């Protein structure tokens, strides 16, 4: 399959990778777009078509990463809004949903219940802390670097490590739910939440790639350019 192009119908892109439906609310694109092309939908919604397609391509093709030239031209404010919307989606929708499933499972897990709930709430808090630290440090940093302000200290380290942690814990949770909880505890519920966690984990992995391979290189390019002036 070739990379998605601006003249392709949005509906066709979504058909090729149904996962991309998740992009729409994050870009504030409504449903009901009919036969419109990707670029038409983006223009109507005042979104950078380049950025939209770049992210759709990163989500869909594991081999694809944009070139330095493409990264340099990014609409950074749109990217920031997208990342922020993703954070909100993970926290308020996915993790809340998974939490409801887990409460039901924990209810049947006897003495393990408090520990299981604690594991998840600790995890949720860790994710919350990570997102809010990105929003409080990196996002304002984007604005100061794009305004050629050299005074702000670089804050780009540690992002990767934190991402690895967040995804590892999620896989621990799957291991516990599928491999180690007693077989008689709500098997259907556990299978269902397994899909939710697998989906979230995939989504988070791509989200990390966007931050590590697009956002941070973008900032490094700007840092370098600023220091030359």
């Amino acid at each position, binding site marked *: 399959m070739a990379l998605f192009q601006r003249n392709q119908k949005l509906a066709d892109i979504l058909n090729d990778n149904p996962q991309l439906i998740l992009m729409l609310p994050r870009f504030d694109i409504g449903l009901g777009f009919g036969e419109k092309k990707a670029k038409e939908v983006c223009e109507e919604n005042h979104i950078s078509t380049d950025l939209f397609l770049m992210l759709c391509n990163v989500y869909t093709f594991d081999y694809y990463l944009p070139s330095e030239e493409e990264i340099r031209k990014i609409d950074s404010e749109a990217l920031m809004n997208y990342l922020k919307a993703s954070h909100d989606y993970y926290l308020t929708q996915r993790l809340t949903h998974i939490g409801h499933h887990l409460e039901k499972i924990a209810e049947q897990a006897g003495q*393990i219940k408090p*520990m299981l709930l604690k594991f998840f709430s600790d995890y949720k808090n860790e994710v919350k802390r990570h997102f809010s630290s990105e929003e409080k440090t990196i996002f304002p940093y984007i604005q100061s670097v794009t305004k050629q302000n050299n005074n702000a200290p670089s804050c780009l380290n540690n992002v990767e490590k934190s991402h690895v942690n967040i995804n590892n814990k999620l896989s621990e949770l799957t291991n516990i739910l599928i491999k*180690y909880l007693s077989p008689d505890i709500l098997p259907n519920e556990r299978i269902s939440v397994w899909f939710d966690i697998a989906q979230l984990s995939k989504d988070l992995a791509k989200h990390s790639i966007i931050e590590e391979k697009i956002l941070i290189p973008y900032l490094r390019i700007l840092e370098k350019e600023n220091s030359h002036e």
Partner: protein
Amino acid sequence: MNKCNIVLIEPSHIIAEGMRRILESVNDLSIIHVSERITGIDVHVHKADVIILNPRVVTEGEMVSTLHNLRKMNEQASVIALHTHYESTNVMKHFEHIIELGNDTPSIIEKIRSAQTTGNENKTENDDLSIREKEVLVAVAKGLTNKEIAEALNISIHTVIAHRKNITSKIGIKSIPGLTLYAMTNGLLEP
């Protein structure tokens, strides 16, 4: 158990001879080669079941590539560190099995046996935790530090770290809350 072929890489003649005496006291252990250095041993490494390596023969920076090369030469062989001088945690963390200068004969032999059975060949066949690993797991779940666990079980900190690594690679859980949950769901720990 099949005969276990051992390659020993140890620069000190005294220690190498001592190890030879100890290992030859056991019928099915056989030292097929002793070398003072890491080079020129390929042909012996191919035949080895266990490689006992003193980390001193390799610089810290070359440790990763050395171990990688040994594994490439012989995927089935396990590597045991022979820990005679101070080495940083950065070096020792690469070893699952460690023989200390203070170990007595039975414990040296036990370590070789356990390295032999947890050799790469058998790793995928048996992912159940060993009794020792379960003890370490429970101690971690109870919130003990590596140092406290080492003291409680009378093993070195390096060995504790090696056990923790094995536990994680077997059950796919690394965090303390995750290990605690595992211990509870498997009846190793009272909730």
